[in-house]
């Protein structure tokens, strides 16, 4: 599962994915991250709509049975949407990390920031180094 890297997304070294939409970038965590975490029990999104987030700055935490990890914003900007479902259904992260478990959407400050993130090929290569 973690070997499948969706081709149309961009990625960070902290295993977040980013999807470009109309004036916004949607963010979630990758299947590799989910596999490392195991069963997710709590998603804490510590921002609200209208907040400014900095690139590489934490916007929340995710707790699995085993561990807690920070969630980092891949690009700077203003939070425009938040996935409210995750508060009550953290298991969505295990079930559909690239779909229903999107976390926040950001209107980027710099429209070019998205393009500087790793593409699928680069992330796939990065995973190979991370796994071994």
């Amino acid at each position: 599962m973690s070997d499948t890297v969706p081709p149309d997304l961009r990625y960070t070294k902290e295993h977040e994915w980013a999807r470009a939409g109309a004036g916004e970038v949607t963010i979630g965590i990758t299947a590799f991250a989910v596999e490392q975490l195991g069963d997710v029990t709590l998603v804490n999104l510590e921002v609200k709509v209208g907040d400014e987030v900095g690139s590489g700055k934490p916007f929340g935490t995710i707790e699995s049975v085993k561990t807690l990890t920070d969630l980092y914003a891949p690009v700077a900007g203003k939070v425009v949407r938040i996935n409210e479902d995750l508060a009550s259904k953290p298991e969505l992260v295990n079930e559909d990390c690239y779909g229903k478990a999107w976390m926040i959407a950001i209107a980027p400050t710099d429209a070019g920031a998205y393009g500087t993130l790793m593409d699928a090929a680069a992330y796939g290569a990065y995973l190979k180094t991370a796994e071994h």
Partner: protein
Amino acid sequence: MTDALLRRTSLYGEHVALGGRIVPFAGWEMPVQYTGIVDEHQAVRTAAGLFDVSHMGELRLRGEYASHVVDYLVTNDAKKLIDGQAMYTCACNEQGTILDDLIVYRHAQDDWLIVCNASNRGKMSAHFAHAAKDHCEFDDESDRTALIALQGPRAFDVLSKIGGAAASLSSLGSFRFRLAEVAGVRCTPSRTGYTGEDGVEIFCAWDDAPALWRALMTAGTPFGLKPVGLGARDTLRLESRLSLYGNDIDETTTPIEAGLGWVVKTEKGDFVGRAALTSIKAEPLPRKLVGFEVTGRGVARHGYPLMDAEGKNVGVCTSGSPGPTVGKNIGLGYLPTSMSKVGSRFYVDCRGKNIDAVVVSTPFYKRANR
């Protein structure tokens, strides 16, 4: 620690073949999970689970005075044991703090086996060897002894299916063990465990473990048996409030404050730590290890500070995670005795945020009588 220094049990190949994710643990490469912590946890609570615990240490003491050496090093009363009986105990230092928690097996009056934590194997091996010197034979058998735990309500159904001597193991009493042949492997099944469920832990020769493991997996799969990694082993033991050395107890904690006073028999005769433990027992305890439930939104983790109503740091969380069977975020931690009563409210400092928690009675989970 680099990979080169990590050791593998004889079951390593089985873990990899079963899709286990391998992590370093106490100097070993061990499976942390196969299908997922919650899935494996529930398998043990509702069916059965199979654990490789070959990394544990096994220390043998033999000879006329072996029983005296063992009894002198442990806090529980080894003199009460009969052949084929085991007991849980602590081994303390002269200050009365905990060197390790152990299971002591009396094979015969002159033949004793001590099972210690993998992380303490070197320390305890030296400790017992030193005490045995000039009094009895000592042998560290850890490198040639494998240990497989079969735990869960269907554990004895699995053994029945294997047949032969295995089928009669349900006649073993709690904390009893005997020599047997299971699936053609000579072994020592013991009715003990670390999950809160019924079951056995089976000692066998290092190289025989894969055959025994495969036979148990084959017989058990129709009953819902699953291989279980260290992750679920931790959530299972925490729900049952079984201590984890290095987390809940260590050389800075005493058995009395850790709630293990029931294995400290100060009246039994002399033993290492007796004087200190006698005075600790006589004085009011400054702090106690309590079980708690996180009622706010958060998970307590090992090392998180515990705070009183004024926001003052008054204790520390020693273990914490979601409890898959109890369905709550649970933990263990040291609190001042004045705050240790069931119902006492406090906060867990979850990385700078004070999250509500309350002391609850333990164990968090207790299996129904069958």
